[in-house]
């Protein structure tokens, strides 16, 4: 389950932020997770408490906002919603869509005190 590694990276990012900005407690961590990305939100939630235990992120709430997939069609050049990575263009049927959103995984915001 690579989500453990990803959550370890999230905790490392939070710890690094604490060296830059003074805070003593993290109330919430808000992730932006691409719907076409490499991680399952449920798996991230599942391992968060165990990974965060004993770190600055312990006790924080993990909030995951899904970012929908979006692509650009190489034939009709329109921006279209993508349900999966190998979807065909819903407008013209062209099988090649270039993914332009929904692939990345980011720590967007921290609520701290």
């Amino acid at each position: 389950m690579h989500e453990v590694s990803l959550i370890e990276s999230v905790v490392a990012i939070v710890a690094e932020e604490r060296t830059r900005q003074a805070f003593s407690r993290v109330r919430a961590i808000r992730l932006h997770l691409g719907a076409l990305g490499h991680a399952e939100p449920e798996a991230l939630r599942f391992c968060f408490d165990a990974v965060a235990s004993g770190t600055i992120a312990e006790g924080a709430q993990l909030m995951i906002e899904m970012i929908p997939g979006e692509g650009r069609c190489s034939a009709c050049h329109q921006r279209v919603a993508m349900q999966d990575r190998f979807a065909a263009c819903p407008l013209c049927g062209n099988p090649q869509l270039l993914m332009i959103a929904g692939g990345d995984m980011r720590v967007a915001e921290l609520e701290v005190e």
Partner: protein
Amino acid sequence: MCTVCGCQTSIAASESGAGPTHHVHDHAHPHEAAHDHAAHGLLDFGRGSAGLEIAGLSQERTIRIERDILAKNDAYAGRNRARFQAGQVFAINLLSSPGSGKTALLVRTITALQGRWPIAVIEGDQQTSNDAERIRATGVRAVQINTGKGCHLDAHMVGHALDHLPPVKAGLLFIENVGNLVCPAAFDLGEAARVVVLSVTEGEDKPLKYPDMFAFADLMLLNKSDLLPHLDFDVGACMEAVLRVNPRIQILTVSARTGEGLAAFYDWIEGRAAALSSAGAPGD
């Protein structure tokens, strides 16, 4: 997990196979020390952003940071890639499910190419040095990474493994990832090419079931072709499936057992490795 720094590299067995040696740390790890203010006899209420505490007013605030979760891995991958480019090393990340024949393919490929190119291998498995030993039997240098509970190699582990290998100048580096069709997909190792192995004893729709692994691969090797006469595997349907996920992927049907189709794989490797060497040659 490394007990010195807490990094996820567990054991990089030394190249001689002589057991674990601790890896060299030439980079800073931010260490998160446990910090208990009360233990210092100090409860400082003025440490919030406002610098003071007013009863009833929280110092809670939101910090917008917008940081990529994979940025750290990608930074290590960038360092590995720069290292490969400086040494004109063609690095291949070899991916598949367990049991598709990656190591057998690798042994055969090394045997065919080792007279023509310097070769080194990084082996990734949860446990044992069995695969590295199979590679070393060919005479080529190999480092085994045991990921412990880990399900994939990351760029940090590969960087450590490189420290245990003699530099391969203008040669080939094969990185055999942990057998897993899901997790390794997210982790760039700094490789120049991704090769995914699928064997004909698996389902032809695997590229559709595990699209991440196939979406970013440069080449698919359809292995164990010698078994095709005994199976109902539909090669055409499999190719159609993988091209749906990745229209740019190249496909070769091979057998690591009989050698069928492997000449084309060797040409594929040598063509790319030669292009890399000539592009990196001084004066070009």
